[in-house]
């Protein structure tokens, strides 16, 4: 009888514990009074750079300290609608990718910065890379402030360039013709001219060079076009002619092994190349023309947004702005993660000027090459490119099927968007 009673209490305790556990987990992201809860998707190596920056800021003894909450990207984006809808524990400040902002704004989830910018006049268009700054302005209101602009480029093995493509990079612009010539020369030595890498940035950069755009009116996709066909077609041609890496090959491995000349990749990849036993450089992504004015480099951007919340006080808003203003002049740590901060103040820093990725920001002309594809339904395009891009380049899908399939899939998904009806 006694044992029975004890067991009963024990079970009750377990049940209570379970329920308490549930209650706690949902409130853990809530912020205390003098803290700014800051959500971001930096769980990788860049996360430690972000933490270092936040620590440095908190050491300046601001009235509102930043509380860093790094979430896995997928989890964060899944959580945002739920949290914002519930109206509780909404983060005070959040980093989202540039491509998401239109969607959030169309759902009325974002708070504008308009009333706050008056007191912070340095946070303005003149002090940030234009491509990263402009997309935050929708219907005449500002909804985001950029942290960085991370772009696509080409890594190259300096020894191999010397050997197979001398002079190709004198103008810092690498054309497909130059790659082809180098790749044909190198094939005899079992060295690949160029790697077939992430299709999305490669394809979008090239499609824009061919005069294409994801959409004309901001809603309807325009993907089954000659520009799309030409863009994917050129990559396929490079593969067919034996200039590129082959299906299944790992470009990073080949590059590090000295078997690859040109390696189109994101600026954030450079930390993976530290072990390279040769000198490498970073330049613009592959181009059709060697005219810098026509150069296009795919880019994206991490942007600071504030989701609607009734709990956020005016004082806290001011605290957020203080943090953003501080970051404007203290972004070197972020550059150390391989990123390009969007603030132009960074250009005054000598240490930054030495970093390989600074080429993309170094001059206004170079800045103009950066192109963010912030079409509202960019996500659907990305999903299609990820699923079908390699298959088309490697000859497993016809080019016409690729472009018509992309148009159809994206249009069908858009038709399901109830905010459109």
């Amino acid at each position: 009888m006694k044992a029975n009673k004890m067991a009963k209490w024990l079970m009750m305790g377990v049940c209570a514990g379970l329920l308490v556990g549930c209650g706690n987990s949902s409130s853990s992201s809530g912020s205390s009074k003098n803290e700014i809860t800051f959500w971001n998707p930096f769980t990788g190596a860049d996360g430690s750079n972000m933490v270092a920056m936040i620590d440095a800021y908190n050491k300046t003894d601001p009235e509102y300290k930043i509380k860093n909450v790094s979430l896995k990207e997928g989890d964060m984006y899944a959580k945002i609608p739920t949290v914002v809808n519930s109206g509780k524990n909404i983060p005070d400040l959040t980093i989202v990718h540039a491509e998401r902002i239109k969607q959030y704004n169309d759902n009325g989830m974002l708070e504008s910065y308009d009333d706050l910018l008056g007191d912070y006049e340095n946070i303005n268009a003149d002090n940030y890379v234009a491509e990263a700054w402009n997309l935050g302005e929708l219907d005449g209101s500002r909804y985001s402030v950029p942290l960085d602009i991370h772009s696509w480029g080409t890594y190259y093995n300096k020894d191999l360039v010397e050997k197979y493509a001398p002079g190709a990079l004198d103008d810092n612009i690498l054309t497909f013709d130059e790659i082809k010539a180098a790749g044909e020369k190198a094939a005899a030595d079992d060295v690949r001219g160029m790697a077939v890498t992430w299709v999305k940035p490669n394809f979008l950069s090239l499609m824009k060079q061919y005069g294409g755009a994801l959409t004309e009116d901001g809603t309807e996709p325009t993907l089954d076009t000659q520009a799309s066909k030409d863009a994917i077609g050129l990559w396929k041609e490079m593969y067919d002619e034996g200039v590129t890496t082959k299906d299944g090959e790992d470009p990073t491995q080949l590059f590090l092994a000295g078997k690859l000349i040109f390696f189109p990749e994101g600026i954030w990849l450079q930390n993976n190349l530290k072990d390279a036993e040769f000198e490498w450089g970073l330049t613009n992504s592959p181009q059709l023309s060697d005219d810098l004015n026509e150069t296009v480099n795919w880019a994206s951007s991490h942007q600071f947004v504030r989701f609607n919340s009734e709990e956020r006080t005016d004082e806290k808003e001011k605290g957020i702005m203080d943090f953003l203003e501080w970051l404007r002049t203290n972004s070197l740590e972020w550059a150390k993660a391989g990123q390009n901060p969007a603030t132009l103040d960074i250009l005054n820093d000598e240490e930054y000027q030495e970093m390989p990725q600074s080429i993309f920001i170094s001059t206004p002309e170079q800045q103009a090459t950066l192109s963010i594809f912030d079409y509202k339904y960019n996500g659907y395009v990305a999903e299609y490119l990820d699923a079908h891009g390699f298959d088309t380049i490697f000859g497993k899908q016809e080019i016409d099927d690729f472009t018509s399939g992309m148009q159809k899939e994206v249009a069908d998904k858009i038709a399901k968007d109830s905010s459109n009806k």
Partner: protein
Amino acid sequence: MITSMEKTKTAKKSTTKEWSAWLFVAPHLIIFAIFFLIPVVFGIYISFTDWDLFNAPTFVGLDNYKELFFNVDSTFYTQLRTGLTNTFIFVLCAVPFCIIVPLLLAAALNTKPFLSKVFQSIFYMPSLFAISAIVIIWTLVFNVNYGPINSIFNTSTPWTGTQPYAWIALVVVTVWWTIGGNMIIYQAALNGIPKDYYEAADIDGATAVQKFFKITLPSIRGQILYTVVMTTIAQFNVYGQPLMLTGGGPNNSTRVLLMYIQQNAFGSGQSIAGIASAMAVILGVCIMIVSAIQFKFLRVKR
């Protein structure tokens, strides 16, 4: 007088008993409700709506199901067919090996060979790793240029990019990953078979193969039924292997239904949760039907 007092006492006792019974099942019941029952009911409800996670779901009746089953021109119709076909192919290819390989290994270990405990640990170990770690290892093994498989056979097969190699790779990875669970169940079952059966068979002059099919298999029939059903359900929910190893390629030939469901609900574009939920419900119904059929055929006839 006495009897009525006795009665109230017993009644009181039985209610206390009932209460404690509930208390004992409560932890499981609560977890079951929170993590299974409520999500399932909610998921079924969502499958009858249009929902983008942002705004309130709008009820659309059977529209999602109509689109998935009958609208031949719809992307989602194609997705369901492709995803379901690929999932069934995977289940058909993987489940037999997920049963046979652990069974043979368990039978071998049951003869208590030299270092049997060490081998048991080695065979079990992959089950302890997360699928992402498993896939990273196998991506290196299947690597076109530097992978051991292509070096040993002196080939340059792009294992994860061409068929039928992509399916072979997926099945190999899955079997390797899941050997442990079933093997342990079979080992326990094999241990429970009385030695007398084998001694009697020896006297009658039965061969090892005969003993395996006439004694071993029938004796562990219950465990085999259990593992077949559970393994089938698990393999219907395949996701991590094709996502990371083949990326659904080549040409969507290994893109399983869960990948479409995940992408539609939580992809990089606006969520299409209604369609995704309808797909999930259809997958759930398929799993239930297949499990029921397996039960019917494999149940021990007494």
